[in-house]
């Protein structure tokens, strides 16, 4: 008999350490806008999936927008991210256009990778997005290597390496973290604890259901925060970024969030209980952000306009993509070895 689902709690002590960096209202509004763009894209994909159309390799990030967007938001253009396959908020927050993501998703000409990588390998080195590996795990080594390059170049560039339950269980995280600590590399590892690894509960895979606690042994900052709260995320990640930028080496920080949608389009998510989903829907990061912004005296009409604009931008991008030509080997000639 499964025990009744309980929302994960947060250590107040751990959270308070990282509640110190203030997010101004303009920044908050910008984050709210990108979160809505990410949400609108996922909703549009869900809608056309329901019509029986294919959306190749689409992994919905609904419910995780605060963690994705507020983590990337404090970065500079020259800072690097290794994103996860779930959700497109990391990419949007780093400056990739919604049109490029839609074109890559549907293997159209004009995306970032000519149909060779789809939305799984969106690549914009000029925006600090070097790409993503196909077998989860190499990301940790890559992130350490990019951070090592920054160190060798005497640059103050920082690398954020996002990871989920799958990559985070592979041994290369230990190997890369060991090197990152040993060499004081400017890298932040961000665990996205969304409760599930496809159909496996996080608590079946990690002790105490936490993906970061094991790394306390490295004597580096290991912090958990409410990944559905924009301010908590912004503050925790900003602090870790600052430590890295100032030469203090890596941190491992873990945002607690929840994957509201199924793993992928063909998954019926029969293993996810309605109670669990509705509990988390009541903690919808976009709704929380909206309330907080209203508390900060932002006009609700302005917020509605942001939501509408995001929806329209996504609709426009899908329409352009629909009328764009398929990527072909000839487009990608340069990419063929």
């Amino acid at each position: 008999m499964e025990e009744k689902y309980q929302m994960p709690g947060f250590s107040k002590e751990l959270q308070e350490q990282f509640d110190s960096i203030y997010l101004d209202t303009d920044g908050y509004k910008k984050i709210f806008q990108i979160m809505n763009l990410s949400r609108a894209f996922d909703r549009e994909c869900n809608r056309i999936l329901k019509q029986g159309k294919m959306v190749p390799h689409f992994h919905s990030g609904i419910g995780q927008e605060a963690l994705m967007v507020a983590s990337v938001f404090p970065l500079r253009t020259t800072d690097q991210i290794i994103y996860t396959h779930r959700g497109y908020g990391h990419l949007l927050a780093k400056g990739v256009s919604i049109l490029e993501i839609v074109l890559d998703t549907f293997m159209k000409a004009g995306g970032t990778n000519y149909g060779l990588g789809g939305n799984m390998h969106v690549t914009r080195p000029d925006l600090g997005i070097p790409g993503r590996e196909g077998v989860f795990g190499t990301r940790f080594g890559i992130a350490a290597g990019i951070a090592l390059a920054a160190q060798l170049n005497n640059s103050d560039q920082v690398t954020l390496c996002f990871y989920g339950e799958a990559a985070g269980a592979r041994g290369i995280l230990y190997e890369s973290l060991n090197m990152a600590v040993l060499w004081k590399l400017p890298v932040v590892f961000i665990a996205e604890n969304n409760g599930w690894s496809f159909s496996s509960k996080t608590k079946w895979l990690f002790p105490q259901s936490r993906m970061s606690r094991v790394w306390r042994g490295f004597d580096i900052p290991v912090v958990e925060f409410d990944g559905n709260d924009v301010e908590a995320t912004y503050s925790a990640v900003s602090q870790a970024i600052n430590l890295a930028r100032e030469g203090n080496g890596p941190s491992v920080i873990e945002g607690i969030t929840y994957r509201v949608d199924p793993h992928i389009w063909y998954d019926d998510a029969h293993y996810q209980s309605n109670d669990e989903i509705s509990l988390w829907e009541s903690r919808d990061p976009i709704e929380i952000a909206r309330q907080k912004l209203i508390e900060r005296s932002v006009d609700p009409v302005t917020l509605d306009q942001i939501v509408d604009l995001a929806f329209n931008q996504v609709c426009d991008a899908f329409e352009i993509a629909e009328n764009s030509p398929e990527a072909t080997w000839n487009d990608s000639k340069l990419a063929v070895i």
Partner: protein
Amino acid sequence: MTTLTTREAIGLVLAEEMTRDPKVVYLGETIRDIGATGASRGLFDQFGPARIIETPVSENGFFGAALGLALSGFSPVIEIYSADFALIVANEIINDFPKWRQQQRHYGPLPVTIRGWMGASGGLGPEHSQCMEAYFHHAPGLTVIAPGTMTDMAGLLRSAIRSSDPVLFLEHRRIYEMSGVYPANADYCIEIGCGEIIRDGIDITMVAWSHMRHVALEAAQNLENESISVEVIDPKTIKPMDYSLIAASVEKTGRLIVIEESPLTGSIGGEIVARMVEGVDRGMVATRVAMPDMIHPYSASMEKQILPDSDLVIKASKKLINSRAIGAITKNPFL
């Protein structure tokens, strides 16, 4: 004219390339001292910790880091302690480097050179004796090189480091103690993908690389006494293989033997024979000399009983010269 051992030559190429290009960095285990092969002796003193980056025994970690460095404008050379251990990082070598290269070739080069020593050298046992080229030549987008002399090591290692693509560079242990004249030109490169006719002949074409090149040459010299004229080709690069050079020779001789240190099944020789049968427009007979499908023993004398040698190549050649079809030739240690 400087005469050097292969070990010294590899160290010197590394030093010269690191001097030429500040973006060349070297990563691996124990390289702060002399490294697995002894090739990095003195490099740490010369270049310091920012260029000679000693890593923990974390192959996945530092191979991944090499990819991150390459994506950041560096040209990493990574040493695998024994080429057999490349299987630990087969995911990085096969799934990451070449595929990343394809997916974003339009954004820039991906220069990663992986060097490791390999091959049977007398009693190192099953996990430190294998020739690794056959495991990796199947992978699209990966360049695989296995030179057979000190000069070729120098010229091809330099080309590998300067290449824009990921390269697996395999150095046979038995070549390490061999000496040669080190090319005085610090830009001496051998083109990747180009084989060489290292002995002219008209009756049989032998294809052999790495240590087996020397076995083939020895057999060819002996066969000359019996009036069998052998042409020996060292392809040097395993992938892309110089098939046109081999085909031109087989068109002349009509007979082909591929000599390979690895087990027969799934061998490079199988691919070469298939390509020649498919592509050479004349009657021909072909066979392979290889190790039987067995695992290396720890005993050096038992190992000798399964490795191809010149006597086996001579035996195969004599059979071939008088046959219209012969099976592959391996030793049988149970006889």
